């Protein structure tokens, strides 16, 4: 039960219930679709860019609590970041959920995203947490509003 509580922390349950930035954007510069055919998790990430900066981000779609909370927390975290900063954060996030970081300090540096550290104990769920990030990565790499499907 402890590991489960670690996984389903209050902050994750809160983001699952009230996901942030789940909306549509008026002006979309980049967009990608992420889909996990194994479980049906499906998200579309739209970005409004100003030069190299993510000015606004919108998430549409649905999935399990882990993928939804991850999408919600990611959207909060990357808003206002440059493309490079967002990609760097993706790398750190990936290390977090695959247990390549275990130092308290490093986890704390990730702020709210650190709440997903518990996912590392559930190998079957790492994909859930990473899906929104892979989708963001595809969106950032896409030309204009080309739709890229991950997985």
């Amino acid at each position, binding site marked *: *039960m402890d590991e489960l509580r670690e996984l389903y922390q209050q902050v994750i349950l809160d983001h699952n219930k009230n996901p942030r930035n789940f909306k549509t954007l008026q002006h979309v510069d980049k967009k990608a679709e992420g889909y996990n055919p*194994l*479980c*049906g998790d499906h998200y579309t990430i739209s970005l409004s860019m100003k030069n190299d900066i993510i000015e606004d981000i919108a998430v549409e779609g649905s*999935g399990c*609590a882990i993928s939804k909370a991850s999408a919600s927390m990611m959207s909060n975290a990357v808003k206002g970041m440059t493309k490079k900063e967002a990609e760097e954060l993706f790398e750190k996030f990936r290390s977090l959920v695959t247990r390549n970081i275990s130092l308290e300090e490093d986890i704390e540096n990730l702020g709210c995203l650190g709440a997903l550290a518990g996912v590392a104990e*559930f190998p079957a769920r790492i994909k859930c947490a990473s899906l929104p990030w892979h989708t963001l990565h595809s969106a950032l790499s896409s030309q204009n509003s080309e739709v890229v499907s991950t997985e």
Partner: protein
Amino acid sequence: MNTKSTTTLNIEKIRKDFPILHTKVHGKPLMYLDNANTTQKPQSVIDTLKKYYTTQNSNIHRGTHYLSEVATKEYESVREKVKNFLNAKSEKEIIFVRGTTEAINLVVNSYGRKNIFEGDEILISAMEHHSNIVPWQILCEEKKAKLKIIPINDNGELLLDEYEKLLTPKTKIVSLVYISNSLGTINPIKQMIELAHRNGIPVLIDGAQAAPHLKVDVQKLDCDFFAFSSHKIFGPTGTGVLYGKSHLLESMPPYQGGGDMIKSVTFEKTIYNDIPYKFEAGTPNIADVIGMGAAIDYLQSVGFEAIQEHEKQLLEHATELIQSVEGVRLIGTAKKKASVLSFVMKEAHPHDIGTILDREGIAVRTGHHCTQPVMQRFKIPATVRASFAFYNTHDEVEKFISALGKVKEIFS
């Protein structure tokens, strides 16, 4: 152990036959409720595999030496067992394949390619497994044929009126699932086969979920083809059976070319072997076929009457209890059902439920169960599916239902 009345099955004794049922998962006793996915193996199957590799291993149909004769005899004796298991007319009608998926692909590529042309129609149902959709789609694309779908109602039952309307002179084959893996529905296939035959249309039955739960009689059903997998009837993975009426199999071209499927080969002309060997190119999965024979022996020693009675009680018990859990919606409420309980919960996504149950030692499947069109029909992304076998107990049913309380505890 729950005292709810049960059948003549000695569950305690049966459970002793399955070593894996005594393992622990996350420190809890394993409760294996994922039997529609794959089943566990009795000691007799495990011992048969060990015996084969320890004392019998050899190639079949090829050697003149002792071991080859032993292996050939063991392998061919399973053909007779399967013939009796399905009540086929002849052993010649039993082809060993990798599993249900390969059996369907064999029919598609051999019978289908020979007999289906532009403008023809192939009829399947809305509750087919991907393995009975995709091979036909590939054929349709190649031949410019059309795939037609028999619709289902909200309970997950086929609409027979619609089925009759879809049987037209253009229909060249009907391919139907006997028992739905995601809904549990038992389809009235005898009646449906009769209707197809009235129109002169052959019928393939996907029996993957039926073979472990009920006595199959291919002569009584009068189906033209019947497919099942060993791993779903408590046998090894990697093997299974295609049954086909002999006159159809004889008329069909080979599916794969290679050794054992020929009588003679020259660079000018090859003469194919007789059925069933014409369809068994290359060294087959000898050990697992022999293991499947042990699984059939085991199933028959337990007896389908007792199996069905016990599984019916498990399903009724689980259905009754789960309906009292608020926020649960059952997916698949057909009048005639196998022991499959598919559902969604208001509070949590199936994947989250699967993770929470897993920590209680409970194995269920979550996802679309390779039936995405069924998920689309019910407008859901996925379900949680608990599927019971004869070794499951009423006590497990109760623990499974009470574990759903943990989901509520976490998500409320």
